[in-house]
C-alpha cells in the first residue's frame, strides 16, 4: 500500500487529531522484564478477555431480556427457543461467567504465590480484591436475573442472611428486596445493579488496575533470595527492565493472545456442547416442591451454612465475610516486603493449599448435599431383599413403618436413602432394643422425636425390624 493510499491518509488524518496511535504504541511497547513473558502471566489478560466477552454478550441479551417479574421468565424461554442464536448468547454469557470467576481466581492465586502483592504493588492487589468482589457480585446478581425458582429462593436465602444483622436486619432486607417481599421491585433493582452499577465500577477499577500495572511495571519472575526492600526495589527493577527488558508487544503479548483465544474458544465450545443454563422452574412461590441450589461459585458457602453448628451460625455468617475480605485487603501490609518466591514462603503456600482444599471440599459437599433429606426415598427406594427374606410378619410390618414414616429421608438402607442420619444397615450391632426404642421415641442427636407420631404397635414393629439389621 502506498503512502498516499486512502486508508493511510485517513489514519494519518485521525492520528494528527487524536494522537491515540502514539499513545497506544507507548502502552503496547512498554518494556517489561524478559522473565514475565511466561505462560504463568496470562491469567490477567484472559480474565479481561472474558470480561469483554461478558459485556458484549450481556448487551446482546439485554436487547431481548425483559427485566420485569411478570415477563423475565418468558423472555428467557424466548431467548432459548425462538430468538435466532439467543440460546447461544445465553450459553456463552453463562459459561463465560463461570470461566471468568475460575480464571480470575487462578490469576489471584498466581500473583499471590509470585509475591506480586508486595511493595510497590500493594494498591494493585487491593484494586484486584475489589475486582474479585465485584465479579462475585456480578455472579450473584446474574443468577437472580435468571428469575427461576433457584433465583427466587436464592433471594430468600440472601434476605434471611441479611435479616440476621443485629439492629439493621429488617432495613437491609427491605433494601435488598426493594419491598416487603421478593417480587417485581426486587428484580428491577437487581437488573440495575447487574447491568449498570457493578459493570460501571468494574470498568473504572479495571482501568485503574491496568494503569497501576503500567506505571509500576509488571511483577518480575520471583527469584529465591531476591528480597524486596523498599529502598532498593524500584531502582533494581528499573535497571533490570532497561538492561534485559523486552517490549510487551509482541514479546510478552504473544502468550497472552494465545491464552485469550483459548479461553474464548473454550467458552464457545462449552456453550455449544452444553447449551444455556436454565431457567429452571417458573418463579411461582406457591410451587414449593423445589430444592433451590446456587451456581457453583456459591456452593461452598451453601455447604457451610448446612454444616456450621447452629449457635455459631449468625456470627460466622455476618463476621466471616468481613474477616475474609479484611484479610485479603491486609495481605500486602502484613507481608509487603521480603521474599517473593513461593519456594521461600511455606506459610503462604500452605494458606493457599488449605483455602483451595476447604473451598473445593465444601463445594463438593454442596453438589451431593448429604445433609438434605432425600424427600422421595420413602416411595422410591426399594427395601433390600436380604432385609426382607425370612422375617416374621411383625418384622415385615416394621419394615413398612420404616418406609411409610419416611425414616429413609435421612437414613439409608443398602446405600439408598438420605445421608443426614447414620445408615441403618447393621444398626442392630450398634444399639440394643431399648436404645432403639429410646432413640425413636425421644429423638436427639439431630433426630426428631417420633413419640407422638407412632403408635406403640408401630414402635414395637419398627424396633423388631431394626433389631434384625445386621451385616
Amino acid at each position, binding site marked *: 500500500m502506498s503512502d498516499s493510499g486512502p486508508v493511510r491518509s485517513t489514519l494519518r488524518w485521525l492520528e494528527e487529531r487524536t494522537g491515540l496511535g502514539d499513545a497506544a504504541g507507548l502502552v503496547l511497547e512498554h518494556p517489561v522484564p524478559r522473565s514475565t513473558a511466561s505462560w504463568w502471566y496470562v491469567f490477567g489478560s484472559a480474565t479481561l478477555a472474558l470480561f469483554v466477552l461478558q459485556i458484549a454478550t450481556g448487551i446482546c441479551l439485554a436487547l431481548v431480556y425483559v427485566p*420485569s417479574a411478570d415477563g423475565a421468565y418468558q423472555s428467557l424461554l424466548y431467548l432459548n427457543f425462538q430468538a435466532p442464536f439467543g440460546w447461544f448468547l445465553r450459553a456463552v454469557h453463562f459459561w463465560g461467567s463461570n470461566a471468568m470467576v475460575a480464571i480470575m481466581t487462578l490469576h489471584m492465586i498466581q500473583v499471590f504465590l509470585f509475591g506480586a502483592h508486595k511493595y510497590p504493588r500493594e494498591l494493585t492487589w487491593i484494586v484486584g480484591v475489589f475486582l474479585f468482589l465485584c465479579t462475585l457480585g456480578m455472579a450473584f446478581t446474574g443468577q437472580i436475573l435468571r428469575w427461576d425458582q433457584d433465583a*427466587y429462593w436464592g433471594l430468600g436465602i440472601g*434476605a434471611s442472611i441479611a435479616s440476621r444483622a443485629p439492629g439493621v436486619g429488617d432495613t437491609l432486607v*427491605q433494601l435488598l428486596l426493594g419491598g416487603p417481599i*421478593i417480587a417485581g421491585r426486587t428484580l428491577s433493582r437487581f437488573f440495575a445493579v447487574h447491568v449498570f452499577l457493578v459493570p460501571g465500577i468494574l470498568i473504572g477499577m479495571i482501568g485503574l488496575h491496568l494503569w497501576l500495572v503500567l506505571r509500576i511495571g509488571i511483577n518480575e519472575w520471583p527469584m529465591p533470595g531476591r528480597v524486596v526492600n523498599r529502598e532498593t526495589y524500584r531502582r533494581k527493577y528499573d535497571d533490570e527492565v532497561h538492561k534485559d527488558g523486552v517490549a510487551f508487544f509482541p514479546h510478552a503479548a504473544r502468550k497472552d493472545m494465545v491464552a485469550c483465544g483459548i479461553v474464548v474458544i473454550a467458552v464457545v465450545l462449552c456453550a455449544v456442547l452444553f447449551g444455556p443454563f436454565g431457567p429452571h422452574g417458573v418463579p411461582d412461590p*406457591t410451587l*414449593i416442591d423445589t430444592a*433451590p441450589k446456587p451456581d457453583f461459585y456459591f456452593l461452598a458457602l451453601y455447604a457451610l451454612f448446612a454444616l456450621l453448628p447452629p449457635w455459631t451460625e449468625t456470627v460466622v455468617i455476618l463476621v466471616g465475610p468481613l474477616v475474609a475480605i479484611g484479610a485479603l485487603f491486609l495481605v500486602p501490609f502484613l507481608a509487603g516486603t521480603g521474599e517473593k518466591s513461593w519456594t521461600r514462603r511455606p506459610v503462604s503456600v500452605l494458606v493457599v493449599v488449605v483455602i483451595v482444599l476447604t473451598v473445593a471440599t465444601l463445594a463438593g459437599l454442596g453438589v451431593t448435599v448429604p445433609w438434605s433429606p432425600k424427600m422421595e426415598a420413602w416411595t422410591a427406594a426399594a427395601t433390600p431383599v436380604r432385609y426382607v427374606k425370612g422375617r416374621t410378619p411383625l418384622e415385615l410390618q416394621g419394615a413398612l413403618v420404616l418406609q411409610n414414616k419416611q425414616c429413609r429421608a435421612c437414613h439409608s438402607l443398602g446405600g439408598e436413602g438420605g445421608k443426614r442420619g447414620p445408615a441403618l444397615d447393621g444398626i442392630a450391632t450398634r444399639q440394643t432394643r431399648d436404645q432403639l426404642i429410646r432413640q425413636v421415641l425421644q429423638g436427639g442427636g439431630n433426630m426428631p422425636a417420633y413419640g407422638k*407420631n407412632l403408635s406403640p404397635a408401630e414402635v414395637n414393629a419398627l424396633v423388631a425390624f431394626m433389631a434384625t439389621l445386621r451385616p
Partner: protein
Amino acid sequence: MTPVSQSRRGFLFKLGLGLNVLGAALVGVPVVGYIFGAARRRTDGQAWIPLGPVNGFPAGQTRLATYENPVRVAWDGATAKVACWVRRIEGERFQVFAVNCAHLGCPVRWFPQSRLFMCPCHGGAYYEDGSRASGPPPRGLFEYEYRINDGALWVRGGQLPTLSRPV
C-alpha cells in the same frame, strides 16, 4: 493585578463551588431518599388476607394455602403469590405457618406420614406444631396471626418472614 480583581476571582471561585455543592445536594438528597425509601415503611405493611372457607381445611390435617400479597405492584406476576401451611387442630383452633424455613428461608414441605415439615436446603425439620425438631434452624416455623370471619380463615401477612421480622 489589583486586590479588587483578586477578591472578585476568589468570590467567583467560591460562588462556583457553592453553587455546585448546592446543586449536588438538591439532586443528592432526593436520590438518597429514593434509594432508601424502599427500606421505609409507610404503614407496617401488614394486612388481613382471606385464605378461603374454614371448611376447606379438614380438622387434624395440614394443607398448603396460597394468597396474593397485599403490598404489590402490577408487574409482580406470579411472585406476588405467597404460600403458607394451614394446620387445623380442631374446630376453630388453627396454626398457620410461613413456608419459609427459619434457617435461611427455603420452602419447607409437609409430610403427613411422619408428621414433620422438612426443608430441602440444609435439612431443617419441624414438628407438626411448627416447633423445631432438628437441623440448623434457630427457632420453630414462623407463625401467622389468624382469625375467623364469616366462615373464612384470615391471616395477617404482607412481608417475607425473617428472623429480624417474623410474620
